[in-house]
């Protein structure tokens, strides 16, 4: 840590260190053309230098903003690093963002260049480039389909590399000059927040902050250059930037890029990473897929699975956390490991996982326990873009499902009187780009940053416990705590429920919208010979409603046992006639519910839930995949669920 911050305070320095220390170890891999193409640190560094020189030649100036858009691939990671080498500021963007979203960010940061993956991204940028001031050129990686495009402001990355690989003392000198000028306080990256509330903000991070925070995290879990990870999360997301770029560079670990989103699962299995990072929805989806597939297995396997999973639930976590477990239970666990757990991990691609992380959202205890009892060392961490992610992490011997760990080195926490969590960290952001007002609102003069989350330090464990977004947490009319996300996550644990939105702030009681999971419910429908042609048809099925009702009541029962949360039990709910969709602005691209927006958009449904009606007619605007808009009409039935009395925990 001290060594890191003193000497290695910029990305170029880290790269140079990696080349000299781990030069021949693999640095980047990409599944391309059927095999895992591999580049060592030495080779990667050469590519990055070539790219840097090529970009200088192209006219990228120090302080220029360069958008980087596309799926995870080494050449784009190199682009990020090349920008950092030449003093430009990389701005990674979500590849599935529509043109308007891109226009907002690109014009906000005044990007002059864009390095993109393929034709799709080129098209989007060309569409908006006229309206962008000061925008110059596009560099693309995959030339497919671009043959006939006007190449005036369009360059292939291989041409840029070609230029950079030429022998030019002048370029070499310029690169050297620029690299030397990069210091710890130089801006390392400009990351745009996903924007759960309003327009997204650009978070300016310096090299020092990024390396400080990631170094602390690396040290916490002792990352080494033998570790290897799968980089599959959006490059624009701070989590991927920190893990794949900052932590990967910091430890000299190997970054593996899948062939594409649809082969991610297969590629994950082939690589078998030692460290894996997944947001809660991914863990949820995986677990759902496990249960669906086991459902179709032969009788014996089903029985064995149930039996051993029950056993894992009993002793799995104790064994993982090295607590005392009886010999018989240990033997049984070994047998279960042979028959079920190890093969299951193998199928999921987690056999070699040393540490798995989940962050970005609350995760339900059940889900968390499921993976840990299998022997996967899944841990929670807490952080945010503004803090270069890492605020708290869990040690290997103190992992709990309802807390998110202790502050790592270099982080200080305090809880504001309002319940909001505040921090001071080496990784704290410099400012919101071109938004001093927001910067001032978030960061005070002493450097304390408000997280916007409500939480408290758990007395038993000393770890931080998050309740919810500070502004989402509210009170019911009777004064009971209203923490929607907590309840929603409990609901989403059921494979049948994809999304849930809870309402109840300043109301008499809580109500919910639910989205069914098409895979799980569809599977159930097929088994029961229920035919359906669309999401809407399946969602309106009354048997489906009954199943969901059971789930909701299970959640109510669990809530009733928690004195703080028992007020959040759901009295009524309805199954939405459409899936919540980022294209409609209902959830973010990282699948976080945009609460206020939904509240407003489905105003009619919410008020119906608080009325005495048994059903409600509604009409909703939807956006189709190709961008067209249309309307959905539906009659939704409102389901009543049982509420349970507060029970004192028996233990």
């Amino acid at each position, binding site marked *: 840590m001290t060594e890191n911050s003193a000497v290695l305070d910029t990305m170029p320095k880290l790269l140079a260190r990696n080349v000299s220390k781990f030069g021949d170890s693999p640095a980047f891999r990409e599944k391309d053309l059927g095999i895992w193409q591999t580049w060592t640190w030495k080779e990667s560094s050469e590519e990055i230098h070539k790219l840097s020189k090529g970009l200088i030649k192209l006219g990228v100036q120090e302080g220029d903003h360069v958008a980087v858009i596309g799926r995870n691939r080494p050449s784009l990671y190199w682009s990020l690093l090349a920008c950092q080498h030449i003093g430009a500021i990389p701005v990674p963007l979500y590849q599935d963002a529509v043109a308007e979203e891109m226009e907002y960010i690109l014009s906000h940061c005044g990007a002059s260049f864009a390095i993109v993956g393929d034709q799709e991204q080129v098209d989007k940028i060309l569409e908006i480039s006229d309206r962008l001031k000061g925008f110059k050129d596009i560099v693309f990686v995959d030339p497919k389909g671009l043959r006939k495009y006007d190449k005036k402001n369009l360059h292939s990355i291989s041409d840029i590399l070609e230029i950079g690989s030429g022998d030019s003392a002048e370029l070499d000198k310029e690169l050297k000059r620029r690299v030397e000028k990069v210091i710890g306080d130089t801006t390392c990256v400009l990351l745009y927040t996903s924007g759960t509330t309003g327009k997204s903000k650009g978070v300016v991070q310096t090299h020092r902050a990024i390396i400080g925070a990631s170094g602390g995290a690396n040290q916490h879990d002792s990352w080494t250059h033998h570790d290897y990870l799968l980089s599959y999360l959006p490059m624009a997301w701070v989590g991927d930037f920190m893990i794949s770029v900052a932590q990967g560079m910091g430890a000299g670990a190997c970054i593996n890029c899948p062939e594409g989103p649809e082969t991610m699962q297969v590629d994950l*299995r*082939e690589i*078998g990473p030692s460290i894996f990072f997944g947001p809660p929805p991914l863990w949820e989806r995986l677990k759902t897929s496990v249960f669906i*597939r*086991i459902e*179709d297995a032969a009788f014996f396997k089903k029985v064995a699975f149930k039996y051993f999973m029950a056993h894992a639930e009993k002793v799995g976590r104790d064994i993982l956390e090295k607590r005392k477990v009886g010999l018989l239970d240990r033997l049984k666990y070994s047998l279960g490991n042979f*028959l079920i757990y190890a093969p299951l991990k*193998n199928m999921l691609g987690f056999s070699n996982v040393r540490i798995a992380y989940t962050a970005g959202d609350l995760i339900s205890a059940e889900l968390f326990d499921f993976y840990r009892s299998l022997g996967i060392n899944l841990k929670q961490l807490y952080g945010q873009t503004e803090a270069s992610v890492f605020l708290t992490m869990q040690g290997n011997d103190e992992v709990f499902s309802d807390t998110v760990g202790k502050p790592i080195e270099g982080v200080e926490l305090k809880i504001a009187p309002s319940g909001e969590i505040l921090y001071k960290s080496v990784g704290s952001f410099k400012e919101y780009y071109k938004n001093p007002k927001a910067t001032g609102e978030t960061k005070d003069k002493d450097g304390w940053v408000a997280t916007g989350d409500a939480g408290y330090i758990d007395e038993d464990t000393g770890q931080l416990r998050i309740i919810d977004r500070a502004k989402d947490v509210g009170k019911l009319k009777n004064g009971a705590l209203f923490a929607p996300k907590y309840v929603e996550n409990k609901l989403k644990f059921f494979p049948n429920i994809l999304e849930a939105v809870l309402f109840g702030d300043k109301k008499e009681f809580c109500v919910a919208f639910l989205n069914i999971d098409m895979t799980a419910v569809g599977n159930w429908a097929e088994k029961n010979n229920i035919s359906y042609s669309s999401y809407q048809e399946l969602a309106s099925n009354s048997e489906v409603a009954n199943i969901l009702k059971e789930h909701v009541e299970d959640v109510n029962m669990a809530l009733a046992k928690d004195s703080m949360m028992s007020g959040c039990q759901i009295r009524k709910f309805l199954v939405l006639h459409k899936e919540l969709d980022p294209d409609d602005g209902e959830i973010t691209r990282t699948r976080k519910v945009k609460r206020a927006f939904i509240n407003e958009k489905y105003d009619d449904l919410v008020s119906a839930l608080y009325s005495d009606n048994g059903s409600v007619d509604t009409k909703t605007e939807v956006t189709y995949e190709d961008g067209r808009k249309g309307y959905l009409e539906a009659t939704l039935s409102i389901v009543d669920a049982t509420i349970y009395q507060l029970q004192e925990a028996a233990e």
Partner: protein
Amino acid sequence: MFYKETGQFKSRYKDELAAFPLFEDKIGIGILCVLTFLVIPMFGLPGLNYEFAMGAIMIPCMIFIIMTLGLNILLGFAGQISLGTGAFSGVGAYAFYKFITIFPDINIIIALVLSGLVSAVVGVIFGLPSLKIKGFYLIVATLAAQFFLTWAFIRVAWLYNYNASGAIEGPNKEMFGIIMIGPQSAGMTRYYFVLVTLIVLTWLASNVIRGRIGRSWMMIRDMDIAAELIGIRPLVAKLSAFAFSSFYIGIAGALMVFFWLGAAEAESFDINHSFLYLFMVIIGGLGSITGSYMGAIFVWVVPVLIKEIGKSAFGFDAFVMENFSTILLGAMIIIILILEPHGLARLWQIAKQKLRLWPFPY
């Protein structure tokens, strides 16, 4: 289960193209090698008399595997049906006999390869009609080879050096100072020779099948018209399959007579043997090397064991058991064709797939 594929990734095409890309399969092959090279020669097979285990099960099984590999290349990989296998194996055997009697100093391995080549040439000649005809027509063409050649084995006395018995017999012959064949050769010597030959031939066959030539066979098998429009010359593809197949069958024939039986007459190469080899291929699985192994072992061992068990446990006479195993063999063919036309190899593949996907069903 057993298979842990997580983390077994390939970063070179060479690894991707390997015969056993999975680590666990390599282990399995290693275990098999230890068994066949050390354990079985030392201890024989469990529950069986040692001599019987080596002489009546291990050696013939390995020879029949080579035979089955040969026929499978033709039938399973190139889709050309043949009922002349028995006769082609005879060509190899008689050629070997002539080589070692005409050139007494010839190295056995060279003689073996030459016999294979002679068989290959004969195979090509009788494969010529395959250029114009398919399926049943080819059956008749290969039957012509079968009947003509077995007739020649009897009538052309030069082939058996004008022996009064009409049989070919292996003289004692050494290689590198060890007596390899003939009445004085040790069973163990012959066992290892056949084993090594089998391994080498299997390796070569699996290489050819996965390469350009093997693909051209499968193209002809799967859709000959499309193959031709891609530039495959049917002449070359089909005749090379006949040649390659007959090469293996010829070597197997020579091994059969000189490393196992010791002596043989024309009837060791008759049409019933052709059927036997065909059964090995079908039961084992068309177009599968693993299948060739399983088919040959199954078809050879099961009747032998049944006969043994019937005789020792129930006191049935040989005649009854003989007929019983004939019926069983025929019934097995029908059952296999109905239930699993791709033979034991497919069952093995399914089982392996299950293990690889365990605990998931798909």
